[in-house]
């Protein structure tokens, strides 16, 4: 029999009884989505466009920073972070907690990440629904998890460990996957919806990842959206996708495709999102072109009544 959201939550609640470091208070890592501030539309910060960004900062509502770039950072990185903090609201985006990994988060990484988040004081922070390490091997990539009950339990256990030291709201991001692992027990949307309910986390819905997975694995993106708990969708990612042979890939290097704009609009209409980030990693055009994409996304959010 399929376990209900209540069963999932009970399993996570049992883990939650472990002592917390904030004196047993209800951790504010569970702040209700409705209480989170509206941030608008921003961009994933990359040093490659730092100069142009500073000149056009009024066109960017907030920045997402790759947390890993500021952990164990040298003086130059720390100075960069201090500059950015003075200009923008920053949302750290972590890459290597390995939240779905049986080995759990690396204690040193977790400690450094907690220190960064304490310094930045973001309204929320994010990580991926994936594992990045196993058996002493670092995969160097966000490896997808099998959609199974065991993977859900593992995610919940690791999230509770993380919450014991990081007291800011955590939002979880859907990743792309090339390999459809054979041991699947439920579809992607059910897996994510159950995870959000059981762990009491928000969702960073990567609209481009959803588009790519839907195309590559033959499901309907709107069916996926139907299955999500609307009040948990906090933030979005969007960027162009590219077709390579028969597969779509998340190169993060292309302008946003028309189909992805359509899906982004649909998502903005359905969910009370608080912010959206353009996640471009390579092949940068002039910043004005990126700012044009931010403006188009901002207009979609405005039409949907997400911000003014």
């Amino acid at each position, binding site marked *: 029999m399929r376990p209900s959201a209540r069963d999932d939550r009970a399993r996570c609640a049992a883990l939650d009884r472990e002592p917390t470091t904030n004196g047993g208070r209800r951790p504010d890592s569970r702040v209700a989505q409705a209480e989170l501030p509206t941030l608008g539309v921003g961009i994933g910060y990359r040093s490659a466009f730092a100069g142009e960004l500073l000149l056009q900062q009024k066109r960017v509502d907030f920045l997402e920073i790759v947390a*890993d*770039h500021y*952990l*164990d950072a*040298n*003086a*130059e990185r*720390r*100075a960069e972070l201090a500059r950015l903090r003075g200009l923008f609201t920053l949302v750290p985006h972590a890459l*290597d907690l390995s939240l779905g*990994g*049986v080995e759990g988060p690396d204690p040193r*990484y977790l400690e*450094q990440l907690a220190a960064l988040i304490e310094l930045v004081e973001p309204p929320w922070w994010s990580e991926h629904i994936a*594992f990045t*390490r*196993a*058996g002493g*091997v*670092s*995969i*160097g*990539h966000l*490896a997808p998890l*099998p959609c*199974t009950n*065991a*993977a859900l339990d*593992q995610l919940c256990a690791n999230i509770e460990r993380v919450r014991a030291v990081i007291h800011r709201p955590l939002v979880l991001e859907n990743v792309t996957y*090339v*390999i*459809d*692992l*054979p*041991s699947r027990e439920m579809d992607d949307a059910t897996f994510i919806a159950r995870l959000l309910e059981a762990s009491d986390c928000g969702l960073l819905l990567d609209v481009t990842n959803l588009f790519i997975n839907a195309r590559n694995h033959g499901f309907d993106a709107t069916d996926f959206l139907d299955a999500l708990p609307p009040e948990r969708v906090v933030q979005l990612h969007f960027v162009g996708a590219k077709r390579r042979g028969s*597969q779509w*890939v998340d190169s993060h290097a292309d302008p946003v495709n028309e189909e992805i704009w359509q899906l982004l609009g649909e998502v903005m209409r359905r969910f009370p999102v608080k912010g959206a980030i353009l996640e471009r990693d*390579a092949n940068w055009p002039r910043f004005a072109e990126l700012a044009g994409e931010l403006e188009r996304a901002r207009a979609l959010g405005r039409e949907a009544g997400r911000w003014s």
Partner: protein
Amino acid sequence: MELNRLQQILARVYTDAAIRRLLLDDWPRFAELFDLSAVEADALRPLSISPRCRSQLIDFGDALISKRWHAVRALLPKSATIGGALFDESFRQYASSAPPFPGVHKHQHDALAFFAHLAADDRWRSLPRWQRELLDFEAADLHARVVPRRLRIRLYLTSFVELPAFLRSGRAPENVREKRSLVTWIRLAPSRPLKRRIWPLG
């Protein structure tokens, strides 16, 4: 199949091209290598026999190498441009047997390890001296940013003071080797900025 075992085996399959080949082409040896139980073999066998899974696995292995290649190119842009096809081909060879580094500086360590691999290649050694020295300078600069050390000194036969002007004017950069350069990288403490100076030696 137990999640722990699944993740451990997948991590090896994703990062080691030789193990991936065993899974695709020699299932009995793959099963023996990981001492798979009957349940585990049942769970993983589709990856080996289903045409769709096989091509997904190959694509995923390629995607991981491509991701590392992009990161390393961004960290060693001059080496990538000057090395051209040799850089790309050599990286594929290096990355298929060297698993990714752990930690937050994984790409930087990957770039430095790859640079050592590249510098040992005979074809690389046949490049003009000014090119090899410029690329060594690029790798040393990356090393200074990543690996904590107070002082680093390197001596080059190429004049790095004059090289940019030579490259801009299109004159033969070989001539700049008449004037040597001493390069120093100094970071007095981890919290202090890195100071790099090029000293022309005449």
